[in-house]
């Protein structure tokens, strides 16, 4: 798989926006401190404390409806876009609160990228345009050669370059589902995020594409912190360094039941509910 090696260094796009300090580059640590979430008056998440260490893959596991995705969306301020959604507690990136105005919200979202369940490349853009769309959308300027390098390196990192290098001018949606999802990963990588949130990125994909994306995750995890929601225990085991098990009792908000290195949570869980879940007895 030598062709997947990064051949060109990613141009330091961030440097062109002069205001950004040094700790806005490279994998960043993310800390959730006593996070709670509401939709209207309904509390869906409570007391969530979680450290997502730089350069590590953290998997959020748990049955449906326990608040994993909601939690993930609080991490890059997508939660507040839902009408009536509120939250409490704090979330820090490299120790800086993301909600209280220290960092502009657009910077928060650029530094903490996101890949959702269903691939959603921009329909009105070509493959190449999709990759660099984040630059345009967040107002970063690059030279033409920087841009071309970025397209190639991001697509390579997402393991898509060889498949699409002759189809860069096709519409993004002309690709297959798995390719579209990798295109979305490449798109997120192009703005050089420090954290990448992935909300069940493989659930809509076939096994081959899933494997390809898992490969991508392990390849990029050094340069970007990854938080991934997964329903697939095997996948969580394969890709993650640490795991957090979420659970919500009936009519109660979701909480973290257990949080440990992946190996421990699957082989030696402390809580019986964790053991039941990872062994497939419910959920």
């Amino acid at each position, binding site marked *: 798989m030598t062709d997947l090696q990064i051949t060109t260094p990613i141009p330091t796009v961030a440097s062109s926006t002069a205001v950004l300090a040094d700790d806005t580059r490279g994998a960043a640590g993310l800390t959730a*401190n006593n996070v*709670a979430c509401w939709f209207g008056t309904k509390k869906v998440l409570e007391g969530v404390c979680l*450290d997502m260490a730089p350069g590590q893959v953290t998997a959020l596991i748990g049955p449906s409806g326990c608040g994993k995705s909601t939690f993930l969306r609080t991490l890059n301020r997508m939660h*507040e876009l839902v009408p009536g959604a509120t*939250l409490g*507690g704090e979330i820090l990136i490299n120790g800086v609160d993301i909600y209280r*105005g220290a960092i*502009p919200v657009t910077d928060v979202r650029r530094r903490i990228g996101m890949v959702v369940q269903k691939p959603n490349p921009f329909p009105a853009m070509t493959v190449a345009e999709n990759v660099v769309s984040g630059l345009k959308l967040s107002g970063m300027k690059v030279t033409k050669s920087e841009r071309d390098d970025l397209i190639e390196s991001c697509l390579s990192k997402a393991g898509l370059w060889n498949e699409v290098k002759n189809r860069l001018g096709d519409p993004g949606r002309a690709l297959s589902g798995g390719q579209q999802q990798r295109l979305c990963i490449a798109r997120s990588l192009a703005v050089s995020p420090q954290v990448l949130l992935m909300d069940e990125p493989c659930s809509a994909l076939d096994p081959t594409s899933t494997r390809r994306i898992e490969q991508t995750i392990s390849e990029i995890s050094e340069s970007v912190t990854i938080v991934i929601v997964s329903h697939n225990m095997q996948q969580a085991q394969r890709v993650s360094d640490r795991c957090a098990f979420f659970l919500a009792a009936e009519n109660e908000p979701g909480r973290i039941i257990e*949080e440990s290195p992946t190996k421990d949570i699957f082989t030696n869980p402390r809580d019986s509910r964790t053991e039941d879940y990872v062994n497939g007895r419910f959920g």
Partner: protein
Amino acid sequence: MTSVADVSESNLVDEARVTPVVRRSKVDRAYRAVATLSGSVVFVVMALIGGFLLYRGIDALRISGWGFITESQWAPDMGGAFGIAAVLPYTVSIALVALFLAVPISVATALFITEYAPRRLRRFLTATIDLLAAVPSLIYGLWGLFYLQPRLITLSKWLADNLGFIPFFEVNEDFGTSLGVFPSSTFVAGVIVSLMVIPICTSVMREVFGQAPPGEREGAMALGGTRWGVVRDVVLPFGRGGIIGGSMLGLGRALGETIAVTLIISPSFDAKWSIVEQGSNSIAALIALKFSESTETGISALMAAGLALFVITLIVNTAASSVVNRSRSGSATEI
């Protein structure tokens, strides 16, 4: 190390809800400002329409006083009396005739598109209904005047001859009913206006019918119901709001229809029950016909009439929109 254990109780931040701070860039603030500004243009224009019509019409209203509502003649320029007591009932009855015909046809067409038509025909029909809405009312008026009216008055005559005991179809003609007394009537105008109302009603009803819950629909089918059973028990009850709202939207349009009515009717200022007899009127047609020959007071009186029409359509349409919106789910598609 488990971070849950690491964070001791004292380190926990307050759980109270935070208000996310959104500092928008200058460009974003400008963008929101421009969008808000252009949105408020609509408010301003609506206020100006009402304001200017009132401002220009107030002179005439001062002259006529309450007579504007009770007087049926229209002679403001000769210093005579004027009012909408004849014009307004005519306007309403043209609109009601139009609705009487348009609503059943629209319900049938909407049902046909959502329930009965083969899939391929559906798209074609939807486009055709849109096209009907795009045909200028002038063309409807011309066609109605030259093609439909001569054919329609035979029906008027039949109605007068056989159902003449009903006040609507009564004709005051001592020497018997000749075809000559039937053209330019409320009925003919109403039929033409109904053609213009059909696409409006149909598109609202089609949209609402199409949202009838597929589960209930399949449930009724699975119980061995006929298609009519599904329509009667599921689609029509669900779409009642759409039928009422769509009809009212149609009513709003019918009340304000100008050119077709102007072409068809011969103006009458004596209110009468008969809809088939020659002579009718409408506020919009009154304005179109009298405008060029009016002097100052006349124009002012027309402005007042326009204001009345504006207020009436405003009320009808706002009521209609609220009915339709209540029966329509505004959910967006998600990817």
